[in-house]
Each structure stands twice: as structure tokens, then as C-alpha cells.
């Protein structure tokens, strides 16, 4: 045990006394994370600014006087290019207007039933039937989608409130218990969604890169330089050497995991700040969630240490090790990306047992506040089990003179 600590100490010392190593292991990744997030923030920011500056093109069919008033007094009414048409005019140009929506020349069609005014009046007077309004927009067009949501919040909601107001009198009581909390929820959800998309990928990829830069040199590099041979000739048990090296690799990688996460969470405001109306909401993990995240990362690091330890042990030198690791790195990146573009739906528990992929799923769920404890356990146990098996294989490989001395 004593010797294991000595060997682990040696590995740690080797890294921390090397400025280049510290830079590539801890500083460079942080710079990359912050840069990626800032660039994405800029892009999203300029996109939403562009949408804000765009003058919406809207056609309103059968407008009531009240609606016209509301539109002209709203923010939209000042900037948007709004055409009011009657039912007959609309029918005669229907194809043309709808094409406009399709190809993006026009953003919104607001269609009020012919008898909207009458029905609305009778509703205000206490009638049962509701007036009906249809809104057509193109969800694949950013301008159109933005117009839809702006029109909804600035005009439709106001109109609705006006009608309800006239029917029931004072609505302040109704308003009192919903609006505020809803807005906050929305912002946090938006931030969390973004985090949910990026975090699994970042964690899965960056952790691997960290272990890779340390592990290859610690085993294959030492082999190449002959240090490992000399070490094996001393009466130190091989299992102690293996343990010392793997422990050091894990410690270094966990430090990098923490560094990345902190960098990532700190740079979230960059992106949400730039995103304008998404708002600079705050990401808040509870302590429990933090612990889960740490557990997932620690186990994942252990698995990576096993994978890279094994490859480095089987390879005669660092070059062979690096080239054997590259394809695995690509697989890891793909696994991380797969969770990035996951479209809803729940994954079966079996997929959480798959190392790396299961961890990425769990982190993604964690950010979406959807991680069940069963799935959490599955991801941790699956990865842990594979890590343990790999550790045994590495220890076994260390006992082969052929592998250790390239004889």
C-alpha cells in the first residue's frame, strides 16, 4: 500500500511539475469550453437581435374594431407591416397569401370568424359560445415563429383579457396567482435544456481527453523510456505499481472533471446573456443533483482509466497507444453526441447500463430534471462493472513479461 502511494505520488508529481502538461490538461480545455460557449452565445444573440429588428408581415382577416385598437396600441403595431382584409378579399387571394407564408415573404395570417364580433359581444354579455380565431404561421421560419409568439403575447392575450374583463369585471384576483412563477420556470427550463444538450457531450468527451493525455504517457511512455522495466525489476509487487498508476490517473482526471464543470457552469451566462429574450436565468442544481453528477463522472473516469490503461499496457510505445485510442475517442464522441439530439421519448433501462452512453443519458436526464434513481443506479453500476473488469485485465497484462518488456 505504501508503495502504491509512492508510485501514485510520483505520477502526480510528474504532471504537476510540468507546466506544459498542466496547460494542456487543465487550462486549454477551460479556454475551449469558454470559447465554445461564448461563440454560441454570440450566434444565438445575433440571431435573436435580427429577429427583433425584422418587421413582421401580417395579414388579419375580418378584424374587429377592438382588435385593430389593440394592435395599433401594441409594440407590434408600431413595427409590423399589417394588412387588414375582409373575408372576400382573403378568399380571392388565399393561395397567394398562403404561399407567402410558405416561402417566408409573409409571417402570419390571423383569421377571425366572420361572426367573431357578434359572438364576442354575446360572450361578454354572458353567452356560452366562444369566439374563434385561427392563426397560421410557419414553424420552420424563425421570423414567422417569433411573430407568432409575439402576436400571441402582445395582442391575443390582451384581447382575451379585455373580453374576460368585460364579462367578469375585475380580473386582478385571477392574475394574482399565476404569472410570476411561470416566467421564472420558463427561463430556468430554457437554460436547463441547453445545459442538458451540451453537458453530457462535454463531460463524456473532455473527461476522456483528460485521461488520455495522462494515461498514455504514464504507461506506454514509461515503457518506451525503460522506467517501467526498471520499476518491475525492483521487488515491488506489480499490482502495487498498477494500482499506483491507475489511482494517479483517476485523481488527475477527476480534478479535470471538476475544472471543466465549473468552467461550463460559469460560462452559461455568456450564452443565455447573449440570447436576449431567453434571459440570463440562473442554473441551479440541488446538492443531491450535484452529488449524482459527481458520482456519474467519477465512475466514468474510472472506466476511462481502465480503457486507456489497458490500451497503453498492450501498446509497445506511445505512438502505438495513441493510434489505437483514436478510433475509441471517435466512438466516445459519437456516443456523447447521440444524447445531444435525442428527441424526447424515454430510453429503456438497458441503455443506461451501457458504459459512456448510459452516463451521457443520465447526465442529460439530470439536467432535464428527469433522472430516476433506478436509471441513475443503472448507469453507475453498468459503467462501474466494466471499469472493474478492465482493471483486472490491466493487472493481468502487467504480469506478462512479453507485454511489459516488448520481448
Amino acid at each position, binding site marked *: 500500500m505504501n508503495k502504491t502511494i509512492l508510485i501514485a*505520488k*510520483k*505520477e*502526480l508529481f*510528474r504532471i504537476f511539475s510540468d507546466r506544459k502538461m498542466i496547460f494542456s490538461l487543465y487550462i486549454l480545455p477551460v479556454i475551449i469550453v469558454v470559447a465554445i460557449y461564448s461563440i454560441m452565445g454570440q450566434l444565438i444573440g445575433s440571431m435573436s437581435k435580427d429577429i427583433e429588428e425584422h418587421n413582421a408581415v401580417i395579414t388579419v382577416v375580418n378584424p374587429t374594431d377592438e382588435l385593430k385598437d389593440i394592435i395599433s396600441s401594441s409594440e407590434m403595431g408600431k413595427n409590423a407591416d399589417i394588412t387588414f382584409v375582409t373575408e372576400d378579399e382573403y378568399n380571392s387571394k388565399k393561395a397567394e397569401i398562403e404561399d407567402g407564408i410558405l416561402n417566408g415573404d409573409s409571417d402570419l395570417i390571423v383569421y377571425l370568424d366572420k361572426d367573431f364580433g357578434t359572438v364576442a359581444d354575446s360572450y361578454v354579455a354572458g353567452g356560452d359560445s366562444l369566439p374563434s380565431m385561427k392563426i397560421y404561421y410557419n414553424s420552420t421560419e424563425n421570423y414567422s415563429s417569433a411573430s407568432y409568439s409575439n402576436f400571441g403575447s402582445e395582442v391575443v392575450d390582451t384581447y382575451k383579457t379585455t373580453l374576460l374583463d368585460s364579462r367578469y369585471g375585475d380580473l386582478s384576483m385571477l392574475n394574482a396567482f399565476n404569472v410570476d412563477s411561470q416566467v421564472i420556470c420558463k427561463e430556468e427550463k430554457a437554460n436547463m435544456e441547453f445545459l442538458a444538450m451540451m453537458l453530457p457531450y462535454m463531460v463524456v468527451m473532455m473527461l476522456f481527453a483528460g485521461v488520455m493525455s495522462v494515461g498514455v504517457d504514464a504507461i506506454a511512455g514509461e515503457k518506451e523510456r525503460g*522506467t517501467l522495466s526498471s520499476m*518491475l*525489476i*525492483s521487488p515491488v509487487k506489480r499490482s502495487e505499481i498498477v494500482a499506483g498508476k491507475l489511482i494517479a490517473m483517476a485523481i488527475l482526471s477527476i480534478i479535470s472533471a471538476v475544472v471543466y464543470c465549473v468552467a461550463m457552469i460559469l460560462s452559461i451566462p455568456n450564452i443565455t446573456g447573449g440570447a436576449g429574450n431567453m434571459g440570463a436565468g440562473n442554473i441551479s442544481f440541488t446538492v443531491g443533483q450535484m452529488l449524482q453528477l459527481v458520482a456519474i463522472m467519477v465512475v466514468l473516469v474510472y472506466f476511462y482509466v481502465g480503457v486507456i490503461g489497458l490500451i497503453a499496457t498492450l501498446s509497445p510505445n506511445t505512438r502505438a497507444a495513441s493510434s489505437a485510442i483514436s478510433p475509441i475517442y471517435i466512438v466516445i464522441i459519437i456516443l456523447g453526441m447521440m444524447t445531444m439530439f435525442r428527441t424526447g421519448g424515454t430510453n429503456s433501462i438497458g441503455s443506461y447500463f451501457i458504459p459512456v452512453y448510459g452516463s451521457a443519458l443520465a447526465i442529460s436526464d439530470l439536467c432535464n430534471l428527469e433522472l430516476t434513481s433506478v436509471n441513475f443506479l443503472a448507469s453507475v453500476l453498468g459503467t462501474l462493472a466494466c471499469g472493474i473488469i478492465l482493471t483486472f485485465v490491466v493487472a493481468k497484462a502487467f504480469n506478462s513479461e512479453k507485454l511489459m518488456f516488448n520481448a
Partner: protein
Amino acid sequence: MLELKNISYDVEDNKEILKDINLKIDGGFVAITGPNGGGKSTLAKVIAGIIKPTSGQIILDGEDITDLNITERAKKGISFAFQTPVKFKGLTVKDLLKLSMGKNASFNEECNILSSVGLCARDYINREVNASLSGGELKRIEIAMILARGTKLSIFDEPEAGIDLWSFNSLIKVFEHMRETVKGTIVIISHQERILNTADRIIVLKEGRLIKEGARDEIYGELLDGVDSGVCNRLEENI
């Protein structure tokens, strides 16, 4: 006592690197010499357990150790110093001694070991074993590690390699000192006349065969007489 029985070592393309070596080494200071490519390093690796002989047996103190791996042999008391000394970035001299002895040493013990290789413990004990040490210092530290282990069979592969004349002189003194103090067997692979001169026995390997073996005086005389031109040419180059 180490005994080699019919040791042969072949590589894939039917090349025989060691051919039927029979040898008994029983204490004292033994030098192995011979021309480049004669099989000296290979023989040393076979004894240490880094490579397995294709056929033959290795007996240490009556026990067959042919199938033991290097770490098991190390525990039985065989130590081996590679032809080129290695650096242990991140480990201090003290750490290395600790690894070799398998326990924490008192400063006195450390001091004794280091001074027997001509190093002052106070100056070196906390030095990191990295490129800042000179080649001669590294070599001495490596020898100190083997002394610290106090093994019954210590094998050095060309300990003089890469050592300047000054360091070489003190290295010779270290070996002479070792010869007087160490009870076990010391095997040194060397081309150097002065090292051969300190040996009790000399073994000559050529083209994978053991061509001569005996007390220093008889073998050494023959070597200088030029009976074996290959070895002699090699020796003269070095002298």
C-alpha cells in the same frame, strides 16, 4: 549458486542467439565479455527473467527458477541493472531506496549505501531522479539501489556505458569496494579492461556460444595474447 543448463534462445526466423550454454556461477565477481552481438545482454535477460529461454534450465541454489517471472526472481534475490540507466521523474533518491529496500530506511542506512557509491547522502537524498542528474550520478544511484536490495545475485549490463573517464575511475572504485563488501555474486557485462581486471572469473561469449570460462588470470592472459582476435580487437578499441 546459479547454474545454467543447456540454455538456448531462438528468435522467429530460426536465428539462434544463444546456443546450448552451460555455466556455473558460484560467488565472487564474474565478468562476461565478448564481441558486440555475442549474446551477452540476451544471456543476462534470460537470467533475470525478462525473456524466457527456448530450451534449458536455470537453477538458483538448487531450485529451478526457469518458469518464474522477473518479479518473482527479484524476490528470490536476483537484481538487474539495464545497459542504459533510466530516470524516474517524480521520484527522489530516497523514494527509490525505499522501493528497493521495501521499507523506510534510517538516515544512517541511506548514508551508508550512498557513500559506498561515492555520493553524499545529504546532497542527493532529496534530489529527483531526473535529467538534472549526470550520467555518472544516475549510474551510481542505480548501483546504490542494487546495493540497497542486498541481493545474492546482481547483474550489471555494461555499467560503464556513457560514463566519462573521471566518473569511470570512481565507478571502478565502487565495484572494487562492492567486491570487498557484498557477500553475493556480482555479474558484470563489460568490454572494459579495467573492469575485467577486477573480476575473479571471466566468461567470453561469441556468436551465442560460451567460448571461454575461467579464472581471470588465465582468461585475461589469453585475451591479451590475441588468441581470440574478435574479442581482442574489441578490447583494444576500448583501451
